């Protein structure tokens, strides 16, 4: 006897009920899948923008620089950036120098963070520079051109092309002042950047700090963020001869961002669990009703000698079919919704201003999903599995029926 074809027939005996249950389950599955994909897309975008402005997917530091930000913890670049760039799957390598200091114009002075970068690499990667015209980017690594935060430029009462003087402490403790010129202005929406960024070429900054050829951070950007597991050991191998240097994945280098995402995802998971719970209750409900309805029929089946086990099996087969069907339809709908969210996304610009900061990262006001197919499949299997689990109680109930009583049931 084929359980499945019997179950199939039984399901369609009450077509309307089956369709409603199917619809409820498929739609819930769709919602969960689509929302997960949307969040994954937003997280991906946050990570992407975060690592590009910050530590990279993998960062190289000396000692605990990432936490202490002690500018004494610089290290010789000595071609390391080039060797890192030679690793396949590495999209960009950003060596950086960070020095706290003072910027002065003829009117005002402000505390700043002098940031030395490799202009070409930085421009193609750093999201802070996204709105900067190519000709406004620093023309060289040792020039006096600087890119400043918008608020800083305003507070110093200067404008593009004007000069200003930056004073930093050299390695020996002595103060070093240099003339710089405003070459470009960036507005990121992040207070510390807009009010304190002075970006210059790496060699200029290193020379001012009395640490020529040295850097505080090398940020490694990957083509594919998923490749970090493969690339990480290769980065470690390249710095193995310098015991003071450490490679850190972005989750550790940018703990804040990683945690912001984890916390957000934790609350989402909680909601998913609730949605699945509600779906399960619906399924239990449907199956129970269908069992109640067929009490009399079951009584007859049992009376003619079918085993209660078989009866239970049949109900579970119905549930499985229901689960598999909603898994298929739900995933189809989920894919459709994901396709829409990947293609068009959700535009938040009508709701909030264009610069949005979260976890120290500016993100795009258009939320876009990405395809997380393994996850979609996994959650689809959960739904099918839950369906089966939901059938246990109704199945047990059917199996326990006493034939005579059941037949008497209305």
């Amino acid at each position, binding site marked *: 006897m084929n359980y499945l074809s019997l179950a199939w027939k039984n399901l369609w*005996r*009450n077509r*309307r*009920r089956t369709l*409603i*249950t199917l*619809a*409820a389950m498929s*739609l*819930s599955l769709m*919602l*969960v899948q689509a*929302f997960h994909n*949307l*969040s994954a897309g*937003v997280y991906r975008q946050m990570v992407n923008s975060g690592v590009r402005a910050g530590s990279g997917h993998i960062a190289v530091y000396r000692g605990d620089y990432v936490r*202490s930000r*002690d500018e004494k913890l610089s290290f010789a670049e000595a071609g390391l950036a080039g060797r890192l760039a030679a690793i396949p799957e590495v999209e960009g390598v950003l060596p950086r120098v960070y020095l706290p200091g003072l910027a002065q114009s003829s009117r005002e002075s402000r*505390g700043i963070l002098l940031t030395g970068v490799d202009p070409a690499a930085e421009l193609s990667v750093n999201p802070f520079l996204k709105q900067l015209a190519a000709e406004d980017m620093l023309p060289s690594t040792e020039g006096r051109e600087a890119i400043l935060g918008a608020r800083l430029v305003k507070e110093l009462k200067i404008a593009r092309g004007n000069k200003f003087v930056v004073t930093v402490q050299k390695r020996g403790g002595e103060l070093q002042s240099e003339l710089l010129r405003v070459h470009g202005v960036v507005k990121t*929406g*992040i*207070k*510390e950047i807009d009010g304190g960024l002075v970006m210059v070429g790496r060699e200029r900054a290193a020379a001012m700090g009395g640490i020529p050829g040295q850097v505080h951070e090398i940020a490694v950007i990957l083509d594919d963020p998923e490749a970090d597991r493969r690339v990480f050991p290769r980065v470690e191998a390249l710095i193995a001869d310098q015991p003071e240097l450490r490679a850190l994945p972005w989750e550790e280098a940018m*703990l*804040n961002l990683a*945690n*912001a995402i*984890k*916390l*957000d995802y*934790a*609350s*989402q998971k*909680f*909601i998913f669990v*609730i*949605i699945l*719970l*509600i*779906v399960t*209750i*619906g399924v239990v*409900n*449907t199956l*129970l*009703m269908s069992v*109640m*309805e067929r009490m009399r029929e079951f009584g007859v089946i049992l009376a003619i000698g079918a085993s209660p086990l078989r009866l239970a099996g049949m109900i579970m087969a119905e549930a499985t079919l229901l689960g598999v069907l909603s898994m298929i339809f739900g995933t189809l709908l989920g894919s459709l919704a994901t396709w829409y969210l990947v293609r068009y996304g*959700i535009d*938040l610009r009508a*709701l*909030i*201003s264009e*610069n*949005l*900061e*979260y*976890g*120290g990262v500016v993100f795009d006001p258009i*939320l876009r999903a990405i395809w997380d197919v393994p996850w979609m499949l996994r959650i689809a299997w959960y739904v099918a599995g839950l369906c089966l689990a939901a059938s246990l109680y109704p199945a047990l109930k059917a199996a326990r029926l006493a034939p005579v009583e059941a037949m008497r049931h209305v």
Partner: protein
Amino acid sequence: MLLTLATRNIWRNKRRTLLTLSAMVVSSSLLMLSLGIFSGMLMDILASATEQYHGHVVVSRSGYQDERDMFLNIADEPQLLARLAASPGVVGASPRLRAFGLLSRGNNTYPAEILGIEPGRERQVTHLDHKLIAGSYLPDDAGRQVVIGRGLAEKLGATPGDEVVFVTQAADGSIGNDLLTVSGIFETGDAGHDNALVMAELAWLQEVMVLPGRLHEVALSVADPRLADAAAADLAARLPADFEVLDWGRLLPEMREVIASYDVSRMILVVILYSATGLGILNTFFMSVLERTREFGILMAMGMKPWKLRAMVLLETLVMGLLSLAAGITLGLLLTWYMQAVGIDLSGYLTPVTYAGGTILPRLSAVFEAKNIWVPALILLATCLLAGYLPARRAARLRPVEAIREN
């Protein structure tokens, strides 16, 4: 008459009724719990942004918050403080003076922001005293004691009991300086505060800064931080024109954006939740009425008017909806209360998250909000009425014979 018929119908098939009811009870209570958790997260974000440092509403001289010019100060008058504290909605008022200078120990000197407070009053507004990782918070007569951020303490190599020097330019142009004793070290998770903030006694700072009897701001806490903007507007109308009253949304515009973006993602989730719950309830009610088509056929064959049939079903649905909602709300409140009291601690898995001047604690907890109860209750009631009405209408349109024949 209809009502008795409806109630009788409900109790006739106890099992079906109980099934339908239980689905509604469980899903509505879970929905209410989820909404409570969302409110809890929002409150956590809000609290983190305001109760660590800023307060919900800050009263200062116009322009001070933007420029931090030490001369934009106000008089430390008991009447002002009393008036602010007595304003409707205000639950705490803390007078503060702020200075920027250097904190030094041994050969290490770092820029620092020193906030002069009255510890007893400050505790009504911010909860930095809950963030100590070493030593103790300022006693009420703090004298020359200070609490400093963890990053600053580490850079200075200071532990509780150590002496540090504070140097600044006082309001008379002289060099204000004094020797301070670290009484405690706090960690908020916010790098800006942990690396530069120092809390000291107001009277001491007024003396060092040569700003006797002056304040830079009065930070207020209000009963409901979500209504801080209204409280601020109310206060602004009653204070002199050169005063500025800013609520947290205007003090921390990035914060407002974070909340706006959070609201968007919350809205999406809420829609999903409502859809899932609604679908479940629609499903259950729809089915429970649908399977009675045959019964309706018989009733109509016996002469019941279609409108009466529809009214009866609607009434039945309404009674069931109300019953299950009553139970759902009770359960929902219980769950919310449990999450509020206990919550889910994620600190083993996450460290505090900072953004835009606030820190969210790694936990999930709920907050009770009336609208998290009545909005879902009304929506779900409408959903089940719809779910009952549609099949009833359909049955009422059928000819009795057809209806009876239908399985």
